């Protein structure tokens, strides 16, 4: 049961990482700024800008 719970936690953490939610959380912690629509926009603009220069795999 504990193993299953651990697996579930890992899967959830992976989904949050793929969704950039963890990265956003880390940014808030690093900068000390509160969560806001403006902050999310700033975060995504930087992140998408960096990501859109990297090739996607076939």
């Amino acid at each position, binding site marked *: 049961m504990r193993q299953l719970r651990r697996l579930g936690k890992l899967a959830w953490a992976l989904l949050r990482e793929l969704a950039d939610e963890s990265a956003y959380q880390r940014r808030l912690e*690093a900068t000390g700024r509160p969560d806001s629509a403006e902050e999310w926009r700033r975060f995504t603009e930087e992140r998408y800008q960096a990501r859109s220069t990297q*090739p996607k795999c076939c």
Partner: protein
Amino acid sequence: MKLLRTFFWAAVAFAAAACLGGIALFHGERVNSVWLVVAAGCAYAAGYRFYGKFIAARVLALNDLRATPAERLRNGQDFEPTNKWILFGHHFAAIAGPGPLVGPVLAAQFGYLPGTLWIVIGAVLGGAVQDFIILFASMRRDGKSLGQMAREEIGKAGGFAALVTVLLIMVIMLAVMALVVVNALRGSPWGTFTIAATMPIAVFMGVYLRYWRPGKVLECSAIGSALLIAAIFGGRAVAVSPSLAPWFTLSAMVLAWALIVYGFLASALPVWLLLAPRGYLSTFVKLGVILMLAVGILLVRPQLQLPAFTRFVDGTGPIFAGKIFPFCFITIACGAVSGFHSLIASGTTPKMIAREGHALPVGYGAMLAESFVAIMAMIAACTLQPGVYFAVNAPAGVLGAAPEAAAATISSWGFPVSAAGMADLARDAGEQTLFARTGGAPSLALGMARIFAGGTPFGAGGRAVIGFWYHFAIMFEALFILTLIDAGTRVGRFMLQDLMGHAWEPLGRTSWMPGVIGVSAAIVAAWGFLLIQGVRDPLGGINSLWPLFGIANQLLAAIALCLATTILIKMHGLKYVWITCAPLGWLVTVTFTAAWQKIFSPTPAIGFLAQAAQLDASLRAGTAIGPDGTVHTLILNARLDAVVCGILLLLVTAILLDSLRVWVGILRGVREARLRESPFVASRLRAEEL
């Protein structure tokens, strides 16, 4: 305990050998797909445990005491130490594209055995090794890209050639993937509506995330996924509506132009509006469907209907022409060895590795998982009746336009199929016809639909649910191919701007709108030209474009392996050079042979120049099929394909010669064997931070 472990690994190795031997030697009767699953699973486990760990410990000497760039350069965003299993999933999601799904389906024309063996052996000894070593190299160099590393370790000429090669490959890849979508959607109102609906869904998600619920990506993706399912049901309603169906029943040419316009707009629109939400949705749908397919295969355990070998190993295949060697090995790239992975392994992933030891499960392990996706695609394709498989995948130019004539042609190959049976199947799938739906996507969707329908409680509904699952699979394939097209066009634009900026500085500026629009148009025009050429091709386009893509992708792998070999020579001299030289030698042999045949083969179905000469002769003799203008275009296209293939060969030859010069110099002691690694810094990362 040690004895038990030895016994366990001996059993795994024995199971791998027995299953691979079983499917290779006893292929007179029908084989259950479980044999392939066990053979692949055990071969991957043994390869990881022995070969992967050997490379990690002895060759690369991964050191967990050495701080990785994620720790040293930690900034909470790109550089962030990440749990190894999360990073494994992240890396797998990045490398898993449509390639490992489509390639094996096309290569199944040789039978299930050649492709399966290449997928398993190629991944364990080649693909995973390439991904792992490039990831290691980038991790030791602060997350530098393949091009930067090639420039530093090999030389400026090698770095420049790598950049040009990547750009060319990107253009070919975008064209061939767009052609797969066009062939899957032409004449299909259900499929076209479903895919068209993904665009407003993505825009809705973009607006939702930016203005209504900023940051709630998972919540928004769940809503988007529900809307996607609703779009599939909506597509069914559209397909049976006499007034709506004609709006969504489009020809291949109209679909191709729609994709070209879409590609241009997507590369110019703000990323948050379309690209990013589509990317999230595509990633989650992709992972979910791959998981569903794995569970479905284990639950249904379907029998393989295709034989181990077909008569087309002799090179007369209707899907693509050419013998098993070299064409099987370039048709399947992403599931076995893919050069594109080296771009991902030197991109985001090396910046997130917490401990050096994690490079093994992430680099080597994720490639094995990708290879398993290719095995599942092979199983899905091979569960179709051979006659059905060839009816769907062979082009109209080979089969003939009339269903009866097409069925008779396929039956004459020894794979019985009837026009009435195909019409029933098309009705079940909600399509007007399933003849000559080249590109691999429709046959994969049919195979997946059968597995999904058989593995769910609704399986009893059988034929009634096939249509839903077929279009679910088409939606899944088209969704992430479109993601690849919009993101790829944008990346291509950045690469071309980077190159052109050397010639005229303003063109290199990503904020200068005339430059952005002009270069975007140039990239779209390049892949759009190849796409239109594929649509016009009477042999379906896949015959010429997929091998070109395979050759390009494997040549990129050769570049990555040249870099990996250079690094191994600098680290150990000749001692471990065989690890990268064996797959490099194989890839160079395969790709150079394939490229040579594609350019110079006297058989018009294979050689571009022979094809052009044949068309030219038919034009002069007045026996050409189709208007003169079209034939002139086909001649020009064939010659252009030959030139592109030749340029790729020259570029890779230049990199190979440059690498050889460096290797000989180092081994003779006349060239410095200095590795450009970042200096050692002791790790201070605590266990609870991993």
